[in-house]
């Protein structure tokens, strides 16, 4: 049976009378957006912490928003993404003095999720930008790990798993840095979230990384890239994702000739026994005239055809090995 737990990460831009906007423009646009995702077969929904107050206002609370999703074919909100991409004097994961503030912010986010069916992942960017954090030493990583151990304990009390999503431009980006971070964090409290494009850009093989940390992995962002960062773009201030001189668009949907070996990852996922959600993410799909809707349909086509075949092959191999 083909994988049914596909979720969608809440990036989307659509045309409105006020120009291209996120569908939170108003409820009519949200209706269209959610139905479009549902038509393709997505049943899980991941969103950002900063959208929660907006959705709460539109739907009378975050649970009201989740009921709207459920009315349109979704099972539930599956993940909440929280981040401090820019280090400030208030919040910077590598600055221990800001940790109380970050924990307080996380507490507020968790409070907004009360009454939901069961968010599984509290997804975090473990650090801010590399250029604001460097030099990145073992001690830096240890400070960051201490923060997420605290948050991991907090989210566990709320039934959610803290799981770390590494950016190619973040302070923990190389394989060695990821290994160090995961070694310093409590495996029961802090998990690993595999963004296939981000790791590939950083020169880390996401398939091997998953293979090595499958027991700590609680989710994926399936997205592709066509470039490895070979020019230290990750150090570009203030933002490497949109301002890197050599690469104007980093992220692509699956099936468009990118570098990530998704069939191999799918087979590895099946072999590992992982049975959680798989999330499709399209970040900045509008660059170069692209459309989020078409990118999403093309990605789902790839899932329904290419990945379904890889999954079936992996299950057959598992069956014959038994």
């Amino acid at each position, binding site marked *: 049976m083909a994988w049914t737990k596909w979720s969608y990460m809440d990036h989307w831009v659509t*045309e409105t009378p006020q120009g291209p906007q996120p569908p939170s423009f108003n409820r009519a646009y949200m209706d269209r957006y959610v139905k479009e995702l*549902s038509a393709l077969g997505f049943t899980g929904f991941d969103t950002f912490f900063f959208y929660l107050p907006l959705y709460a206002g539109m739907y009378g609370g975050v649970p009201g928003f989740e009921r709207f999703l459920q009315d349109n074919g979704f099972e539930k909100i599956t993940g909440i993404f929280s981040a401090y991409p820019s280090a400030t004097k208030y919040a910077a994961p590598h600055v221990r003095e800001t940790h109380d503030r970050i924990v307080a912010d996380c507490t507020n986010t968790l409070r907004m999720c009360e009454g939901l069916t069961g968010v599984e992942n509290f997804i975090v960017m473990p650090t801010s930008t590399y250029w604001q954090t460097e030099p990145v030493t073992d001690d830096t990583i240890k400070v960051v790990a201490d923060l997420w151990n605290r948050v991991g304990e907090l989210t566990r009390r709320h039934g959610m798993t803290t799981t770390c999503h590494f950016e190619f431009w973040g302070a923990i980006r190389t394989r060695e840095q990821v290994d160090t971070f995961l070694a310093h964090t409590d495996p029961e409290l802090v998990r690993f979230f595999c963004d296939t494009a981000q790791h590939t850009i950083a020169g880390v093989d996401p398939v091997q990384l998953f293979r090595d940390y499958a027991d700590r992995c609680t989710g994926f962002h399936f997205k592709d890239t066509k470039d490895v960062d070979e020019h230290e773009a990750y150090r570009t201030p203030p933002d490497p994702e949109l301002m890197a001189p050599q690469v104007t668009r980093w992220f692509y949907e699956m*099936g468009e000739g990118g570098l990530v070996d998704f069939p191999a990852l799918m087979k590895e996922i099946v072999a590992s026994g992982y049975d959680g959600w798989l999330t499709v993410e399209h970040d900045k799909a509008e660059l170069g005239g692209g459309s989020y809707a*078409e990118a999403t349909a093309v990605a789902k086509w790839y899932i329904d*055809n290419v990945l379904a075949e890889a999954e079936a092959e992996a299950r057959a191999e598992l069956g014959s090995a038994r």
Partner: protein
Amino acid sequence: MRDTLRWAYALNQWNVRLDVFVRHEDQQRALKTVSACGFDTIELASGTGRWDNISRPEVILTNHGSHAGFLDFLRRARVQGVSSMFWDPQAPAEEEEGYAFRSTADPDDADAIVEWSRPFVDFVAGVGAEQLVVRPVGSAWMTPPLDADGIKRVGDVWNRVGELTSAAGIGLAVHYDCLGAVHTEAELTGLLDATDPARVGFALDTAELTVGGIDPVAFYRAHADRVAHVHLKDTRHADTGEEYRMPGAESTMLKGGAGRRIERWFFELGTEGGLVDVPGFVAALREHDYPGWVVVESDHGGNPAELAMLNSWYLQHELGIAK
């Protein structure tokens, strides 16, 4: 779509300007989108010239070598085939004397139009499609008023083309549109009466009929035996002010340049304020064991991928059809 009715999707909304739907990889993305939405069969629409390489038969064949080569191209995206192709002989085409502006209403143009149909007849048959869907007559604002003799002359052209399609083993379906010189229900019935039921069917477009003031459900029930093809889409407006008669109605009416300034007439299934009774119409098709294709269309709409996804949602969730 897994259903007793046969569902297809029209590609026309992707090809909205002269040069925007040319690269094969862009066409593959559209085909994958249609496939991901649950449709494995498509309708093509006619075009002209080197950039219409998924629209003009000769150009398609230049691109893909053969009918089989084109079908292989579709099947790369898991689209299995073509239901039908739309052709408007009144639209200027390089391959059809350029800007000759011939009309089926002019008896002097009949021979040329019948000749022009041959590439389409051959192509529709060659790719295993079932219907050549045609615009039977040009826009009302460009055509002298049609009396019964005029409608008969139009019908005669399509009877002749119908001989070609019958010989090729395909169907011919005349399509009503809201700007056409055959406009009222009486004129439309007159056209159907003027054509040979054995060779010429009717392509019923739910939104076009509604805009034109004709109830598609009632019309289907009255003429079910003639309906050989369906275009399913919705509209929020009826042309209650005879805007179709305005000069340049393609722009002044359908793009809101004048009249009530309505900039968009056609909408996806399930649109808020839609005038078409889609469930009622589909139920009528089922009652009559309608055997033809139901082509979901999103032309003159918006982002084609979004519209395809919304139409897919409607079929799955409102009509209860499994993808």
